[in-house]
C-alpha cells in the first residue's frame, strides 16, 4: 500500500520552496522504490512551519516542519514515510501541535486537511451541507439565519452581514449581484488568500447561499493581481462546481440560478474600498463613489448588490449547516463567532489563528506567537492593517472585540496583527502611513489626495527637528481634517497609525513623553 504524503501548494509554502520539496520527495521515493501518493494540500495556517510536510499514519498525520529539499534524503533515511518521527524536523501529530490544537476552526475547518481542488474531498469534510440546507429555505429565512448568527463583516468595518443582505433582499432591481471583495491589500493579512488557495469551495458555497438569500443570479470575485495562485484555484473550483451542478442555471436542483466569475484587479490598493472596487469591475478607474446611495441599493451597474469580504462569505456555510445558534455561541459582547487572527511581522511563530472573540493581544503575541522573531523586546503592534492604530504595551491586555478596540481609538478590523520590535522608529512608520496614502489615494477628495502629501512633508520636518512644536500642532490639525473630511477610510483612517504613533511614542518624534497626550 502506498503511503500518502502531503506537501502544501499554498503560496506561502511555495515561497519557501515547497515545489522543490515535492519534487525531491517524488524522485527520492522513486529511487528507493517506495510507493507514495503525494497530495498537494492547502496550508494549515502554521506558516512559521512552512513548508510543513505531513505523512498519513493510522494514528493521524505526522508533521515535519521547515522542510528543505536538502532534507528529503535524510527524512527517508529516518523512515519518515513509515511514520517514524525521529528526524530532527519531526513535530509529532499535527493536530496536537498546541498552536493548532488551541484554535477554534470554523471558517478554516478544512484548510490544510483537504486537497483544495477536490470537490469530493470538500464534500467529505462537511462541504456543501450549508447550501443543501439553504435550497430548502426561502430567501428571507436564509437572511434571518445569518442575522441571528450575529456575523459581522470581517473585512474591517464589522457591519452586520444579515442587515446588509436584508436591504438587498428588499430592494427592487432587475438584476442583483453578489460581489466578493478579495482585494486583500493590507499588510499583515493573508486569511483571504488562505481561504481562496486552501479551501476555494467554501467561498463559492458562501456566495451561492448569498445569491439564493437575496435573489441574485450573478456573482463576481474581485481578486488582487498579486494573488495569481488564488485566482487559479478559484477558476478551477468554479469550473468544477459548475460541472457538478452546484453553480449555473439550476443550483443543486433548486431551479434557481447562480453564476460566478473571477475578476482580476490591477494593483490598486484603493480597490479594496467597496465602491472603488465596483467601479473597477465596471472597467473604470478605481475612484471612490460618494455614499449614499449604498451599494445595497445601487451597487454594481447601479443594481442592488451584496458586497462582502471573503471571510464573511466563507463563514456563511457553517452558519447554515450548524445553525445560527451554534455560531452565535462563540465570542463575546456584540462580536459573535470566530475571528481569524493573522499574526505577522517580527514574530517568532507567525500564522493564522482562528479563535472566538475575547482573547487578548498579549496572549496572541506571546502564547501563540512566542515573542519577537528577532528576540528583542516588542515595542508596538499595528492591528487592522495600514489604516489601523499602533498599540503600545499598556494596551496589550485588550480583548479582541470590535467595541473594546473602538474604545481605545483603535480598530480590530480584519484581525491582522503586525508586530514591531524595539528597533522600530515610530516616526518613520507614521511617515510611511502618509506616504502609502499619497501613493494609493484615488485622488477624488482633497483631504486624502493633498493631505497625505502634506503629511509626509510635515513628518519629515518633525524628524529633522525643524520648528518641531509648530509642526506637531500642524500634523494634528491635518489629521483632524483627514479624519473628518475624507470621502472613505483611505484618507479617513490614515490618521489612526499616525496619531497613535505620535501619542504613544512621542519620544520617536523628538517629543518629551507625556507631551501633547492631552490633545
Amino acid at each position, binding site marked *: 500500500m502506498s503511503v500518502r504524503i502531503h506537501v502544501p501548494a499554498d503560496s506561502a509554502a511555495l515561497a519557501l520552496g515547497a515545489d522543490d520539496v515535492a519534487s525531491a520527495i517524488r524522485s527520492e521515493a522513486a529511487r528507493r522504490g517506495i510507493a507514495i501518493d503525494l497530495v498537494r494540500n492547502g496550508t494549515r495556517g502554521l506558516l512559521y512551519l512552512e513548508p510543513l510536510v505531513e505523512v498519513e499514519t493510522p494514528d493521524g498525520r505526522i508533521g515535519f516542519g521547515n522542510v528543505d529539499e536538502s532534507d528529503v534524503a535524510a527524512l527517508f533515511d529516518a523512515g519518515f514515510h513509515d511514520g517514524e518521527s525521529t528526524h530532527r524536523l519531526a513535530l509529532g501529530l499535527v493536530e496536537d501541535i498546541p498552536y493548532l490544537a488551541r484554535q477554534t476552526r470554523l471558517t478554516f475547518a478544512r484548510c490544510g486537511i483537504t486537497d483544495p481542488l477536490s470537490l469530493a474531498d470538500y464534500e467529505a469534510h462537511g462541504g456543501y451541507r450549508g447550501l443543501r440546507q439553504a435550497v430548502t429555505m426561502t430567501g428571507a429565512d436564509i437572511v434571518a439565519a445569518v442575522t441571528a448568527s450575529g456575523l459581522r463583516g470581517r473585512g474591517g468595518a464589522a457591519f452586520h452581514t444579515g442587515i446588509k443582505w436584508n436591504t438587498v433582499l428588499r430592494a427592487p432591481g432587475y438584476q442583483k449581484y453578489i460581489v466578493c471583495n478579495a482585494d486583500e491589500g493590507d499588510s499583515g493579512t493573508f486569511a483571504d488568500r488562505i481561504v481562496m488557495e486552501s479551501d476555494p469551495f467554501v467561498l463559492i458555497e458562501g456566495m451561492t447561499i448569498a445569491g439564493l438569500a437575496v435573489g441574485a443570479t450573478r456573482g463576481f470575485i474581485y481578486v488582487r493581481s498579486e494573488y495569481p495562485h488564488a485566482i487559479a484555484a478559484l477558476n478551477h473550483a468554479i469550473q468544477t462546481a459548475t460541472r457538478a451542478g452546484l453553480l449555473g442555471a439550476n443550483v443543486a436542483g433548486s431551479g434557481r440560478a447562480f453564476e460566478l466569475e473571477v475578476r482580476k484587479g490591477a494593483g490598486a490598493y484603493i480597490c479594496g474600498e467597496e465602491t472603488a472596487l465596483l467601479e473597477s469591475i465596471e472597467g473604470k478607474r478605481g475612484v471612490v463613489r460618494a455614499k449614499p446611495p449604498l451599494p445595497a441599493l445601487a451597487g454594481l451597474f447601479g443594481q442592488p448588490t451584496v458586497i462582502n469580504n471573503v471571510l464573511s462569505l466563507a463563514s456563511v456555510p457553517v452558519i447554515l449547516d450548524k445553525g445560527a445558534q451554534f455560531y452565535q455561541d462563540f465570542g463575546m459582547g456584540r462580536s459573535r463567532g470566530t475571528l481569524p487572527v493573522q499574526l505577522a511581522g517580527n514574530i517568532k511563530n507567525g500564522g493564522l489563528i482562528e479563535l472566538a472573540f475575547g482573547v487578548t493581544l498579549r496572549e496572541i503575541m506571546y502564547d501563540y506567537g512566542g515573542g519577537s522573531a528577532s528576540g528583542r523586546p516588542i515595542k508596538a503592534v499595528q492591528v487592522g492593517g495600514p489604516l489601523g492604530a499602533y498599540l503600545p504595551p499598556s494596551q496589550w491586555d485588550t480583548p479582541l472585540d470590535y467595541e473594546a478596540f473602538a474604545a481605545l481609538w483603535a480598530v480590530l478590523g480584519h484581525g491582522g496583527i503586525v508586530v*514591531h520590535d524595539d528597533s522600530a522608529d515610530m516616526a518613520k512608520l507614521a511617515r510611511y502611513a502618509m506616504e502609502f496614502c499619497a501613493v494609493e489615494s484615488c485622488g477624488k477628495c482633497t483631504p486624502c489626495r493633498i493631505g497625505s502629501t502634506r503629511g509626509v512633508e510635515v513628518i519629515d520636518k518633525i524628524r529633522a527637528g525643524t520648528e518641531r512644536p509648530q509642526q506637531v500642532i500642524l500634523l494634528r490639525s491635518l489629521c483632524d481634517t483627514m479624519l473628518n473630511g475624507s470621502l472613505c477610510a483611505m484618507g479617513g483612517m490614515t490618521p489612526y497609525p499616525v496619531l497613535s504613533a505620535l501619542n504613544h511614542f512621542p519620544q520617536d518624534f523628538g517629543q518629551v513623553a507625556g507631551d501633547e497626550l492631552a490633545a
Partner: protein
Amino acid sequence: MKPDSTETRRIIGDILALHAHEGPLGQDMLLPVLHAIQDRLGFIPPDAVEGLAQSFNLSRAEVHGVITFYHYYKTTPPARCTVQVCRAEACQSMGGDALLSHVSHALGCDLHAHTPDGSFALEPVYCLGQCATAPAIMINDAVHARVTPQRFDKLVAKLSTKAEEVA
C-alpha cells in the same frame, strides 16, 4: 522579442474578438482585455489606445485614464527580469529596508528603474500576502519569502545560470 505593430494589432484584435464572444464589448471587459494584452505582450503599447477606445466606444482619454490609474499596467516593454520588493509594514519589521538596499546595490538599479542593459527592473510592491514569513520579494511571477541578502544572491545566481542555459 518586440512584435512589430502589424503583429501587435493582430494580437490585440484576437484578444478583443475572444472577449466579445457574448455580444458587444461592455466597458466591464476593459480590465480583462488589458490584462490579456499585457499577459501576451508584457506591456500595453500606447498606440493600442486608439483601437481599444473604438472597440469599447470610449474616448481615448477614458482608456488612457484606466491604464494609468492601475499600478499593474505597464506602458513600456518590461525588463527581462522584474524584481519587486515588498515595502509594507510587516516586511519593514523584518528588515525590508536593508533588503531593498542590498537588492538595489546587487542589481545596480534604483527603485522604479531598469539596469542600463535592460536585464533587471526594480519595483516596489505593497504586500504579497507573505506577512508571517517576511520579508518577501517577487522575481517575475515567483514569490519568495524569508528573503535574506544571502538568499537573494543565491536566487539571482540561479536565475543567471538558467538564462545562460537558455542562451
